[in-house]
C-alpha cells in the first residue's frame, strides 16, 4: 500500500487529506491512477498544473519509483515565509 497525502489547497479541492492506494510503479503511474477518477481529480492533477510531488518527504519526479509503505505527498505551490 502507498499512502497518498493531499495538502492545503489541493486537499480542499479534492476533499481528501490522505488515502491508501494499493500499488503504483512510479509517481507518473500514481498520477495516472488519480487522474483516471475524472472530475476534480483530472482537473486539479492535469499535466501542466503547478503542483509538486514528494516521496518520503523529498521532492520527486515522474520517474521516481514507488514501493509499498512509501508516503507520497501532492503539494500545491508553497507560500511560506
Amino acid at each position, binding site marked *: 500500500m502507498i499512502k497518498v*497525502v493531499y495538502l*492545503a489547497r489541493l486537499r480542499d479541492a479534492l476533499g481528501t487529506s490522505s488515502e491508501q492506494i494499493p500499488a503504483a510503479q512510479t509517481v507518473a503511474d500514481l498520477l495516472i491512477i488519480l487522474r483516471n477518477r475524472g472530475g476534480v481529480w483530472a482537473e486539479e492533477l492535469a499535466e501542466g498544473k503547478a503542483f509538486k510531488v514528494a516521496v518520503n*518527504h523529498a521532492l520527486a519526479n515522474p520517474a521516481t519509483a514507488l514501493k509499498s509503505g512509501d508516503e507520497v*505527498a501532492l503539494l500545491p505551490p508553497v*507560500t*511560506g515565509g
Partner: protein
Amino acid sequence: MPVRIQTADFDISAEIAALRKTNPKIGAVASFVGVVRDMNEGDAVAGMFLEHYPGMTEHALQNIITDAHARWDFFDSLIIHRVGQLAPLDQIVFVAVTSAHRGEAFDACHFIMDFLKTNAPFWKRESTPTGERWLDARVTDDAAAARWKQ
C-alpha cells in the same frame, strides 16, 4: 536544533543570544523577521492560517541550511517558522546567521529566506472580506531564488 516549527511566538533577542552562545569568534549576526501584513494583493487581510507538511518541512529547511554552509563560511543559523492561526502584525518567520564578518552572515541569511520561500512546504490561507483563500505562489519568489544559481 537550528530548525523549529512552532505555534508560539518567539523573542528575537533571546533567540540571537542563544544562537551566539558565548562564541567570541562571532563578529556578525544577520537576521530577518517576516511579519503578517493587513493587506495583500489589494485586499484587507484579517488573519491567516499557516499549514505545513510535518516531517518534510524540517527536512527541506535543513537542506537549505546545508546548501548555505556549502556556499559561505558561517558559524550557526536558526530558522523558526510559526504555523497555525496568525493575525496582522504577528511574527511569522525568523532566520538568523552568525559569522566572523558581515558579508557571509548577510548573504547566507538572505539565501536561506529566499529558498525557504520556494522550497519549504508551508501554505498560507488568508481571511479576507470575501472569504478564505489559499495564497498563490509569487513569481518574484522564484526569481529571488533563481538569482543565487548564477
